[in-house]
């Protein structure tokens, strides 16, 4: 319970930070915002490594490996396409 409450605290505070930061994003960059958020949600890669990264390849290990592959698509694809997109925005 204590552990849960400490995670809950972090969760609530992070929601507030997200709320503050995202409203400041310029509407012109809403598409890159979505693609970069795809990239950082690839952080689930970390979860997949921890949950399925043990030496023994049991069922959780197999599920973890599939999750790692999909999360890696997001990390690489998300950051890359965002960088590509942002490179197109130029001033007169």
């Amino acid at each position, binding site marked *: 319970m204590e552990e849960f409450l400490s995670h809950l605290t972090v969760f609530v505070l992070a929601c507030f930070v997200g709320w503050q930061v995202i409203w400041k994003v310029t509407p012109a960059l809403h598409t890159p915002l979505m693609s970069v958020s795809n990239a950082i949600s690839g952080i689930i890669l970390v979860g*997949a490594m921890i949950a399925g990264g043990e030496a023994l390849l049991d069922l959780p290990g197999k599920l973890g490996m599939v999750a790692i592959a999909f999360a890696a698509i997001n990390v690489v694809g998300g950051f890359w396409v965002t960088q590509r997109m942002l490179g197109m925005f130029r001033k*007169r």
Partner: protein
Amino acid sequence: MTSLPAITTVAYLVASILFILALKGLSSPATARKGNLLGIIGMFIAVGITLVQPEVQAYGRIALFAAIGGIVGGIVAKKVPMTAMPETVGLFNSFVGLAAALVSLGAFHKGGHTGTIGSIEIFLGVVIGMVTWTGSVIAFLKLNGRVSGAPITWPGRHALNMLMGIAALALGAWFVVTHEAMPLYLTVVVAGLFGILWIIAIGGADMPVVISILNSYSGWASVATGFIIGNDLLIITGSLVGASGFILSIIMGRGMNRSISSVLMGGFGEGDLEAGDAANIQAQAAARGVNIGDVEVAAELMRGSREIIIIPGYGLAVAQAQHPVRELTERLEAEGVRVRFAIHPVAGRMPGHMNVLLAEANIPYDQVLEMDSINSDFPETDVTLVLGANDIVNTDALDLPSSPIYGMPILDAYKSRTVMVVKRSLNPGFSGIDNPLFYRENTMMVFGDAREIVDAMVKELKGAAVA
């Protein structure tokens, strides 16, 4: 699940801050690229520190599967055209959902998570992950046209959805009490099915809201797995993404004057009705008292203007007309015309869709303005050129209380001296609503494909410049 060594906690904290800075960078195009680089550094730190955790041992396998995913992601990122960004984001949302569901199931099979809180966490991870996954796959298929953009509805739909919700709750209770695999896997099925049936009933024009909501869900899915494996980095990052998608859906809902819940109930819109042979269109238009203009007249009028505003819509993306539009802009500027672009918040199929297309065509971003900052300039505008947009300039939103889009904020194109609407036919757009703007005295309809028409305008202007 046990407390982490101090160095790991610090590394995760640094990664979290870098992700926040990555999002903060997006407050201006000038700082956005640097922000993105900070995000990449954050990801390297997060993955690097995770690799040295004691429970992470299978380096070979992890490297192999991460490499497969990384290569696929790289190919997608390098090749995808900007017109296809909405479905790409939809696809990426789906992967997060799938990964979250898999990690939640993995944690269940690993055992040791039998408490009430632990079971609820796993249940939520599976539900949010599955709905995000299957819902996003349907959104992806709708956005790239493999599934009809029209809402697919059937009688008793809401009752069925309600029933699935009740079933999910019952399965959740069963799972929390027994910790058995059976209710959990039944939850997988019910949640997955719900995602499909939910999104398939929502029309194409509502996709900006849908894709934002699913983006938000992908964040909450990460949060759920963060709770399951007791990892604050996942919780923080997931919350940022969840908040981001949530705020975007609020902005999109305001742009359409629709509540998010009414969008999510689905069934709105008629699908793409644009079609018909040219002769028929002309006859129909003439019968209804529409001013039909041809390209020469349009080009001549634009050439003699001082202020022009271009309003792009989804049709611009479909016709891939962004590059000809850049040429048109340059031609007109060479003639001394000031050309600017007006962007409605829900133009296109996702938030910011039009801005990216115009940026791709090398149109400077300081020439592209949001609705609120340009709407007061229409009365001083000689020509407003509407390219593949419909509902966002529909005056019914202002003065017809019975209209389904009444109250939606619009771009005040009708206030300019002349409005030119480039459209394939008079047929209503995705919302299935007629547009009185087309029948106004100061409106001139130019029928045809946006790309062909703009190309022809450019040619006309070139010819005039030579002569």
